[in-house]
C-alpha cells in the first residue's frame, strides 16, 4: 500500500511557482533545442565511450600499469621523465647539430648524466626480461 503526499496549490508561494515555471521553461527549451541528429551523435559517442571504457577496465596490462602508477616512487620517476623530456627539448634546440664520429661519441659517453641514463635503461630492460619470462612460464 502506498500513500500519496499532496501539496495544496494555495500552500505554495509565488516564488515556488515561479521556480517551477522556470524549471519547466528550461526543460521545454532543452527539448526544443534537441534534434534527431543531436541525439544520434550523443548516443553514438556514448556507445563508443562505453566500449572504450570497457576495453580499458578489462585490460590487465593497463590495470597493472595504473596500480604501479599509484606508487609514489613511480610518480617520482614520471616527474623525472617529464622534467627530462622538457630539459632535453630545450637543450636540443640550443645545441649545434652533432658532427658524428668516434670523438663525438666518446664525449657523449664521458658525460655522467648519459651514463646514468644508460644504467637506468639497462635496469628497466633487466626487470622487463624477468617479468616477460615469468609471464610466459605461467602460460600468459
Amino acid at each position, binding site marked *: 500500500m502506498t500513500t500519496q503526499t499532496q501539496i495544496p496549490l494555495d500552500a505554495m508561494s509565488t516564488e515556488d511557482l515561479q521556480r517551477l515555471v522556470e524549471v519547466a521553461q528550461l526543460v521545454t527549451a532543452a527539448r526544443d533545442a534537441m534534434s534527431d541528429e543531436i541525439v544520434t551523435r550523443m548516443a553514438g559517442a556514448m*556507445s563508443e565511450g*562505453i566500449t572504450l571504457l570497457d576495453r580499458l577496465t578489462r585490460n590487465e596490462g593497463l590495470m597493472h600499469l595504473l596500480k604501479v602508477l599509484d606508487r609514489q616512487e613511480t610518480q617520482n620517476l614520471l616527474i623525472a621523465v617529464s622534467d627530462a623530456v622538457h630539459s632535453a627539448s630545450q637543450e636540443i634546440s640550443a645545441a649545434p647539430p652533432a658532427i658524428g664520429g668516434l670523438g663525438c661519441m666518446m664525449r657523449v659517453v664521458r658525460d655522467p648524466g648519459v651514463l646514468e641514463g644508460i644504467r637506468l635503461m639497462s635496469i628497466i630492460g633487466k626487470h622487463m626480461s624477468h617479468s616477460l619470462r615469468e609471464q610466459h612460464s605461467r602460460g600468459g
Partner: protein
Amino acid sequence: MRILVVGGCTGGTIVANNLARRLSAEIRARKVRITMLSASDKHMYQPGLLYVAFGQMTPDALYRDQASLLEESINFHVDPAATFDLDNKRVTTQSGKVHEYDILVMATGSRIVPETIPGLAEGAESFYTEAGAVKLFKKLREIQEGTVAVVVGVPHKCPIAPVEFIFGLHDYFKARGIRDKIKIKYHYPIGRIHTIKEVAIWAKHEFDRMGIEYETLFNVGEVDVENQVVKSEEGTETKYDLLVAIPPHRGMEVIEQNSLGEGGWIPTDRFKLTMTGHDDVYVLGDTTNLPVSKTGSAAHFEAEVVAENIASIIKIGVPVREYDGKVYCFIETGHDSATYAMFNYQNPPDLKSPSKPMHWFKMAYNQMYWTSVRGLL
C-alpha cells in the same frame, strides 16, 4: 568444453560475447573454447532498414565489421554451417571444415521468401534488404499521387514493422505536402489490424485519426503486376500505384535441408531454450519456433538466458534461469514520436501514449545497439 555458436547476427553475437565475459578465466586456462561460424564478415543493424526506406539513414550506417564486435577470445570464422550431425556433435561448414562441440548454439536467423507468392517479388517493394530499402525510398520520392498499398505476408519478422511503416508513410507524405493526394491502404491477414490485440486496438484509433484505409482478413494470394492489382486468398483485390510488402519469412535453408525443423524453425523448449530432444543444443532468435515475436529484442533477452545457463552449467553443473518470453519493441509512430510495447508469456503489452522523448530513446538505441551486441548493455 567446446562451445560452437552458429550464426553471427544479434542473438549469436550477444550470446558469444556474454559467454566470453562470463567464462574469461576458463578460456584463459584453456578449459573453454568458443567458436563462431557466420555467413558474413559484416554485421547489419536490421531495424535501421526502416529508416533507410524513408531517407532518414544511409545504408553504410547500418554496418560494422563482425570481428570488431566480438571479444578477442572468440574464434571467429566466416564459413557458414552446411551439415549438422547432432548425434555425433559435429558441424561441417561449407568449406568442408568439421567443428566438434560439447554445446551448440543455433542462431541462424530467418530469410524473406517473397517468391512463395505469385508476382510479389516482381510487383512489390520491401524494406527487408539494403537494396530493397534504397529502392523503396527512391520510389517513395517519385510518387506524387495515387494509392500506396501495404500488404503483410505471414509469418514475418518484427510484427510491429507494418504499423510503423504506415505511420512513417503518413508523416513522409505530410512533410512533402502531398498527403491529401495519396491514399494509403493497409491490408492485414487476420480479423483485426494487428496480431497483438492491444496494438490492434491502439493502432486502429491512430489509423482512423490519420485517415488510413484498412482491410483485414487479407491474405496475399497473388500480385497482378501488369494491371497493378493485389489479390487476396479471400477473393478481394486492391488496385495500387505503389505496392509495399512485408514479405513472408522462413527459417534458413540449412535448417530445412538438415531436417532440424519445419519451415526452418527449430522446435524449442519455451523456458529452457534447448532444442526438443537435445539438451546440448540451444536455440535463440528467429530460429526458434516459439510463440514470441521474431525480433532482435527477443533474441537479446533469449541470448542472456542462454549465456547465463551455459556459463552456470560449466561452473556449477546446472542451469539457473528460464526465459519468460520477454520482448520489448519500440514503435515509431511517425517521424518524431514513438512508444513501446513490452510483454512476455504471461503479460500482454500495456501501450503508453507516443512521445518525442520515446522517439529519441529509439534514435539513441540505434547507436547503442553496437554496445548492446558487444554484451555491455
